[in-house]
């Protein structure tokens, strides 16, 4: 299945979860947050399967402001 991960198309095995998408980015355990289709997915729900075509945004803190 295909997802859009931080603006780029990616192919994942069917049934892949939010955690699998995070692994693609090499995201650390802490300091990141995920939105799927515009809604925040709490850490406790990262085992949730993604739908085909999901838009996944993974954010972290950087210098600014």
């Amino acid at each position, binding site marked *: 299945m295909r997802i859009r991960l*931080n*603006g780029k198309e990616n192919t994942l095995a069917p049934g892949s979860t939010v955690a699998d998408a995070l692994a*693609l*980015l*090499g*995201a*650390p355990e802490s*300091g*990141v*947050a*995920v*939105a799927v289709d*515009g809604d*925040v997915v*709490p*850490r406790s729900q990262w085992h949730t399967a993604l739908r085909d075509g999901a838009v996944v*945004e*993974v*954010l*972290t*803190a*950087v*210098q*600014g*402001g």
Partner: protein
Amino acid sequence: MSEDQLVIAGREFGSRLIMGTGGSGNLSVLERALVASGTEMTTVAMRRMDADGGTGVLELLRRLNIQLLPNTAGCRSAAEAVLTARLAREALGTDWVKLEVVADEDTLLPDPHELLDAAETLVAEGFSVLPYTNDDPVLARRLQDAGCVAVMPLGSPIGTGLGIRNPHNIELIVARASVPVILDAGIGTASDAALAMELGCDAVLLATAVTRAHQPERMAAAMRAAVEGGRLARRAGRIPRRFWAHASSPAREC
């Protein structure tokens, strides 16, 4: 001065200078500047995670034990800012947010309508909202009434270093504020920070003026001294301005 603490949303701060992390090209330079500034809270921005990993700024701030104030920089609508705040809360475990909703990239001035809309939504969701706002006393009042825990009027547009362009508006905001007023944006040098405090602001938030100074650590120390000096002067009460000279020595009988 422990009897003169800054209190925001029930949390006490010994330092009235809040130094952000933006604009520094080097983490060790940033670290020395943050330490020299004495700041107890600092801003970070939320951005897409790259495959090449983070910037290390979170690790640095945890080590220095500085409270995080995530911002919503780059957001142009209330919806975008609200989502960014929710993501920041999830990522960083804080419900404090520096709310920024800007109207365009040339001025980076806050969009009043979107800002107020986002503030109302986030307050209802339990966030402690610190909005970056125009130097507009009416908007500042509306944000305060919406439940924001501080209001943060600009001195001049972000990164310009033009100082405080409308000191009277800042005084008007201060005069009617029931929450802390934090002068945010536009500070160019130490005298600007001192003026903000003399006008009655409770704190100053700056980043560029330090991080892009020729010597950031030294400028951070200058800003710290300026904020402390300005605060003391405000509390001491300045003399009235006079048009004519007024002798400070007793009249001499010649």
